[in-house]
């Protein structure tokens, strides 16, 4: 293999693909990135056998071929090189990476040992979505997925395509976030899958700054995200392939409360800062007591810690309905409140041991957050 590529493209490609590398030592080849050159383009690939990333960049190819290079060394090196053009050539000794002033020889692993990253299977259904919107939406809920092994279905983000919008949902069975993202045009409805948390995170990280659309190919056994870059100097295209979480996602809509005994509207910034202050004095359950009294037109937040002391504060806001005393894990509360961009948040309570629903007051934000309280 003998090629010349732009350093920026190589750097970009490596920083994306190395995210898919596995730290596992059982199969050392998985710690490598494969670089395969064809006429006019070179493909960087990496995988941990659950997720795979392919990144294609333009290349002036003198001779085709490929190598499998340990990703850490490769990306570190690419990060340090200053010149804009890098040439790479492979031999039995390894891969020679040369620029005008630097010359490096990296030992490689046999390319034949490198796994084949699956492409389209043939039974895919194709959909399209705006890259930035998807990544922004994913970022708002990916950390809400469940971590326990007891319920694998909730360890991923649920994707449900409904024709004109994509609904994303994630829950750890104590709180839940749902985001609705409008689709660029009316598309096939009824496609749904559960994306593993790791893939969701990596996808976000890779494509968050990209304008343009992601094509999603959903098959029964895997999902493939395909993105074509608008700036060829950065790269030609990127593909993320991932396994899906098996099983049926629980009917989470049943969990979202509809009838409320008490409703409050609070200023978002005030709520967040009060919660943070109160958290200093919360006990080991991270509990914060929220006391709502319609007469006061506001909410009292109380925390007690047997060692540190106690704290109480008052946030004024609109209160309708019955008085209520309810406790929450302040971290869950804060996680939810901080996702909103609106000035005010509306919170509906269905009872002392029932879920509470957070949404933006005023203009709807296509995001809602439900959380369960602590037993009183």
């Amino acid at each position, binding site marked *: 293999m003998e090629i010349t590529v732009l350093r920026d493209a190589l750097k970009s490609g490596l920083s994306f693909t190395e995210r898919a590398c596995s730290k596992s030592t*059982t*199969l*050392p080849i998985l710690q490598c990135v494969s670089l395969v050159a064809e006429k006019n383009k070179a493909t960087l690939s990496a*995988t941990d*056998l*659950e997720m*795979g990333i392919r990144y294609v960049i333009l290349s002036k190819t003198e001779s085709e071929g490929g190598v499998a290079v340990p990703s850490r060394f490769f990306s570190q090196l690419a990060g340090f090189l200053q010149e804009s053009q890098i040439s790479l050539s492979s031999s039995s000794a390894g891969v020679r990476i040369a620029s005008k002033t630097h010359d490096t020889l990296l030992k490689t692993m046999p390319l*034949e*040992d490198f*796994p*084949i*990253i*699956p492409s389209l*299977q043939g039974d895919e259904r194709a959909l399209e979505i705006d890259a930035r919107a998807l990544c922004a939406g994913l970022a708002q809920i990916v950390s809400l997925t469940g971590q*326990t*092994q*007891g*319920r*694998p279905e*909730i360890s991923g983000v649920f994707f449900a395509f409904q024709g004109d919008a994509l609904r994303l949902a994630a*829950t750890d*069975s*104590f709180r*839940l976030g749902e985001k609705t993202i409008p689709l660029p045009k009316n598309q096939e409805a009824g496609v749904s899958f559960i994306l593993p948390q790791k893939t969701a995170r990596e996808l976000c990280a890779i494509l968050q700054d990209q304008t343009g659309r992601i094509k999603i190919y959903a098959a*029964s*056994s*895997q999902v493939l995200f395909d993105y074509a870059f608008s700036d060829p100097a950065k790269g030609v295209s990127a593909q993320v*392939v991932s*396994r899906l979480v*098996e*099983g*049926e996602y*629980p*009917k*989470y809509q*049943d*969990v979202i409360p509809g009838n409320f005994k008490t409703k409050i509207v609070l200023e978002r910034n005030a709520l967040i800062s009060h919660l943070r202050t109160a958290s200093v004095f919360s006990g080991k*359950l991270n*509990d914060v007591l929220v006391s709502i009294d319609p007469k006061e037109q506001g909410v009292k937040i109380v925390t007690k810690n047997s060692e540190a002391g106690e704290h109480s504060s008052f946030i004024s806001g609109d209160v309708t309905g019955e008085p209520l005393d309810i*406790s929450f*894990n302040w971290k869950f509360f804060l996680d939810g409140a901080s996702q909103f961009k609106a000035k005010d948040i509306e919170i509906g309570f269905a009872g002392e*041991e029932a*879920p509470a629903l957070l949404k933006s007051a005023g203009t709807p934000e296509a995001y809602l957050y*439900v959380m*369960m*309280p*602590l*037993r*009183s």
Partner: protein
Amino acid sequence: MNKEELWQATLAQLQFKTSPANFATWLKNTYILDNKDGLLTVSVPNNFSKEWLENKYNKTIFHIIKELNDEVKEIKYMVEKTAGKAKEAAPRHAQPSPPERQLGFPELDADQTTNLNQKYTFENFIVGPFNELAHAAALATVKNPGGPGNPLFVYGGVGLGKTHLLQATGNQIIQNTPGKKVKYITSEYFTSSVVSAIRNRTVETLREKFRELDALIIDDIQFLAGKEKTQEELFHTFNTLYQAGKQVIFSSDRHPKAIPALEERLRSRFEGGMVADVSMPDYETRLAILRTKLQEKGVFMENDVLDYIASHIQRNIRELEGALNRLITSSQVVGKMPALQEAKTLLRSIISNPNKAANPRKIIQVVAEFYDLKEKEIIADSRKKEVVRPRQIAMYLLREELKGSYPFIGKKFGGKDHTTAIYACEKIHKELQESEMLVDEISLIKQRIYSG
């Protein structure tokens, strides 16, 4: 050789042709799905394995297979969804009690496909002499589903833990063998499914749905009484599952012999496996249950209060939990756990006081209903066998529960002589020593008297 043996032989040779790391990675969770007409289909856990085996190992695998079975002309690799389930590292755990007081979304607990609630496990099922037979039978079923304990028929009164045991069995089977198709339903669900299948002409689909299960659990099977079409469907479904060695588990409020309007062939099938009863918990077990529930909730209560609850609520574990919750709720309002006196007051409405309990009319009414007779018939003069027995049982209960005098009892039954009453009570008393069925019947009747 069969599929398993063929694949094992293949793997045995393949392991020497690849490195241990590669062998472990690419051939994990693979098995032969089908071998028909020269086409061998191998199941693989994911697309990465599929690509690798198709492109890198196929020649070698084909070569080995051809030597073992030369009818094979082609090998195809397919990603099978259930194969991946075993890959999910640890098997399903019952969701642990939420960290201290954090509540979880209630609807998320029940698995959609199996209808099994993860909170029912063997770990939180308390065993005592009253349910150890049923418990042992359930454990045996888990160890060997489809074996000699098939079907498993558990019966007993209300609130004694039958559903808990059934669900725990289902959950444990799935935990031991992930990927097994287990379904828990109530007989009511089965009945309404049959009815709508008949209406929509989708009976075949319904049959397929149940027959592809590895284990079927039906709760409250006594409600099938009198429902002919449903019983017929159940009969066919049961036979198919049983002959395929799949486990079926039933629960009921009474012994199969005592379920009225039940087809003989179903009755004999219910009795053909393992029949185990759950009776009422004794004092020690009631106390143990209370303590365990308290521990789960992370709450402390004085011993004398626990003793009071355990001594006065004897019939029903659900009632025990209800009493406990009542006291805990009030303690949160007041700020501390109730002492014995307060507890007595709080529980007064739950713990049946003599007034609420029974009156002669109620007893006669319940007995009549139980044996499908009219009150008039029991009180009348008829000496028909079907009427005399319930009448004697009713007389016995009036004596036992209300401590009525014999003349009093005689009068209640339309002016009968007090000697009739004496005879009835003694006869039933003697029969109780000999017939367990009668003991069950009377205990059921008593439950109905006091819960109505």
